[in-house]
């Protein structure tokens, strides 16, 4: 287990929530991917990525998220994002991730959008 990240899985109604606490980088990516694969294998169709507002995200982490966004399209899953700082909301928009997933200010708003 990577000490720079913790990912826990919870469910609200039919939404699987990945609570991502810590760094999102190439090093920690496997932990995030494993959690995504776990909910995917269990049949999740609606997945909320709940980030840590104070977390560090770099280009390696963005690549991991692009990989998940790509796979989710093939599997016809809906991915929503919340918990990001305003800086990383801007970065996700800059790279174009917001063309494939929506970012919400709160968990409640994200859950309502599914």
């Amino acid at each position, binding site marked *: 287990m990577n000490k*720079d990240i913790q990912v826990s899985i919870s469910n609200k109604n039919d939404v699987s929530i990945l609570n991502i606490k810590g760094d999102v*980088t*190439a*090093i920690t990516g496997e932990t995030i991917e494993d959690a995504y694969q776990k909910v995917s294998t269990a049949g999740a169709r609606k997945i909320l990525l709940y980030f840590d507002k104070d977390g*560090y995200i*770099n*280009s*390696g982490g*963005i*690549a*991991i998220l*692009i*990989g998940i*966004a*790509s796979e989710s*399209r093939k599997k016809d899953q809906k991915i929503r994002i919340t918990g990001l*700082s*305003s*800086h990383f909301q801007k*970065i996700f928009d*800059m*790279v*174009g*991730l917001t*063309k*494939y997933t929506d970012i919400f200010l709160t968990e409640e708003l994200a859950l309502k959008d599914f």
Partner: protein
Amino acid sequence: MVPDNKIELHIPSVMGYEKIAMECAASMAKKMGFTEDRIEDLKTAVAEACLNAIEHGNKMDTSTKVGITLTVEESRLQVSVKDEGKGINQVPTPSIESKIEGEDKPRGWGIFLIKNLVNEVTFEQDPEGGNVTKMVIYLEK
């Protein structure tokens, strides 16, 4: 001798150490009066320049170092990131569509982010060896 307006640090070519340089640059920018937004832009740019130096410049050779120099000027901060490599190939502007469709690897965003977050950036080869990324960020965007 390092002049008063310069800070130099060296980090090992190990992923994760870019955060040390990032926090150092952020502390200096805060002291200079940069806004929180600009400090966040600077942090990402410095981290990405260091990651490029670690991964592509020094090829994660732990016997090499990445040198970071912060130069404080009146209304701007200059950050130079130097590796010991032989030159980094220029990468095309990444396309999210190609990456999502699986036509291109999902990685390759570092230089794109740097160019979009700082006011000025150059990528040069040092005549004495190594690559240098020079970034300038202004107090007022």
